[in-house]
């Protein structure tokens, strides 16, 4: 698989504040890459650097194996931070400018993308008359113009209503199915978990982890068990071999194992032999949210 974007020890400071401290990772072709992190972790700074809005202090990046340039940016549909359009122009006039600068799309294509984001009826209204959600939709339409192979979305569901959020999620899934590479910054973890194949987690400018979602999330196996006598269960499980730690949560017990070593049959047999009948036995996948808090909490 080819690498679409490669970051190499990117660092950026705003005066005394170090926004990015040597961040490196690769974005493979065809993935949905989620860039996560709390507010102020450096997500937008990172996206701004790869789009040449900000200059990195040190480090480098490449798009499609080449240094970033106007030519590479023209191949990327981007929505960075806020919808940026001429207030006194209509949606169509604004997209005409996007089209003229980027060379992506044509008049028919402008109608197509406006249809996708459901702005056809208001396409001749001035941008200044749009609601926040409509502005966001227009920004997504501008990114989709010309059906680019790579899309960069910074908080794409900002300002959208629940229906709008679901629509954008479906849109992203559909784009991913068509083989597009999508780089998406968000702090809505649920959303990222639903659509992303890869994630990178940033905290105060440092990259905590990056990779395929499954790899990032499953650094351990979690088995959840329960029985009528929770205390006896807990006491006996302490003798079970090879676990890393055990945790009681309400009337359930969670047993943690190194990744790939949890054997459900063994646990079931072990408990039964000790005279305990389980009424719950399941492998639990760690949610992105849990992982995120685990990594980003001090």
């Amino acid at each position, binding site marked *: 698989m080819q690498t679409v974007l490669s970051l190499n020890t990117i660092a950026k400071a705003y005066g005394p504040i170090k926004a990015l401290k040597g961040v490196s990772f690769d974005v493979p072709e065809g993935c949905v890459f989620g860039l996560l992190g709390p507010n102020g972790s450096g997500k937008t700074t990172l996206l701004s650097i790869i789009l040449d*809005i900000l200059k990195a202090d040190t480090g480098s990046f490449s798009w499609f194996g080449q240094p970033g*340039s106007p030519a590479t*940016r023209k191949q990327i549909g981007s929505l960075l931070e806020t919808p940026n359009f001429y207030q006194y122009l209509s949606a169509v006039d604004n997209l005409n400018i996007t089209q003229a600068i980027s060379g992506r799309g044509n008049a028919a294509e402008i109608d197509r993308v406006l249809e996708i984001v459901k702005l056809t009826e208001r396409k001749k209204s001035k941008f200044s008359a749009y609601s926040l959600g409509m502005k966001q939709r227009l920004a997504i339409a501008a990114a989709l113009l010309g059906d680019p192979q790579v899309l960069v979305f910074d908080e794409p569901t900002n300002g959208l209503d629940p229906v709008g959020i679901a629509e954008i999620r479906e849109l992203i899934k559909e784009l991913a199915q068509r083989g597009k590479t999508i780089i998406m910054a968000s702090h809505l973890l649920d959303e990222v978990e639903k659509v992303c194949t890869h994630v990178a987690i940033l905290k105060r400018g440092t990259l905590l982890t990056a990779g395929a979602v499954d790899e990032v999330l499953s650094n351990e196996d979690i088995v959840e068990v329960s029985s009528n006598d929770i205390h006896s269960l807990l006491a006996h499980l302490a003798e079970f071999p090879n676990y890393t730690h055990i945790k009681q949560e309400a009337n359930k017990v969670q047993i943690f194992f190194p990744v790939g070593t949890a054997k459900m049959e063994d646990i079931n047999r072990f408990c039964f032999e000790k005279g305990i009948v389980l009424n719950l036995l399941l492998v639990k996948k760690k949610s992105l949210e849990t992982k995120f808090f685990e990594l980003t909490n001090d």
Partner: protein
Amino acid sequence: MLALIQIEWLKIKKYPAFWWMLGIVALTYPGINAMTYYGYLKATTGKEVTNNIAKMLLGNPFAFPETWHSVAYFSSFFILLPSIVVIMLVTNEYTFRTHRQNIIDGWSRNQFITSKLFDVLIVAIVATLVYVVVAGGFGIYADSSVLYQWSSQLQYIPLFLLQTFAQLSIAFLLGYLVKKAFIALGIFLFYYLIVENIAVAYARFKMNDIGRFLPFEISDRLLPSPAFFSRFGKDAKASYDHALAIVPEHIAYTIVLTAGIWLICYAVHKRRDL
């Protein structure tokens, strides 16, 4: 290049302030010249001896070819109007954050500044066209017996364009660096209307006229006061001749200053975070 102009035209053609400016310029240029012209008519028509003396002294500043000079001079007082549009055109990009979006969409940083240079050029050309129409109109109207002289003193057309472009470039630089429309306009008005006028007047009498090297004054000297000002005595004649004599060197200064302004914009834009 053509693509950049086309894109800027997409931005400008539906910008109401641009058309307001054009409308006001189209009223102001003939307005100020008409006022001067009627002042002239009042002084020169009549049977009194003074009227005839006035006519003899003044000539007709609005007949060909002197109209090119007079109208350029009086119209150039109103650089303020197109300056407002130029400042708005650049600060709008910051307000709407489209200065970022243009780059994200695929312009280089140099292309962005070049596109703004074309904006300033477009506004300067529009103002110059209005001036040409007004000056030509006065020439035809004021004295049709000298129409055959229409083509001398046409050098005032490129001089007017250069002065307008140079002064609008200063307005652009302010808007570009300050980023906020009202602060930039405030500084522009205060400096252009008050500070520099006082400094130039003071320097003229006390400091060997070094005020002529101030940013606006450098190009103000491209269009000296019309010829009739020189007919009020020997000193006036000498100072008019001097003003004409230094025009060529002020052309050079103006070009250097304006080139410097744009080079600063290119250099700053290449480095700064957007």
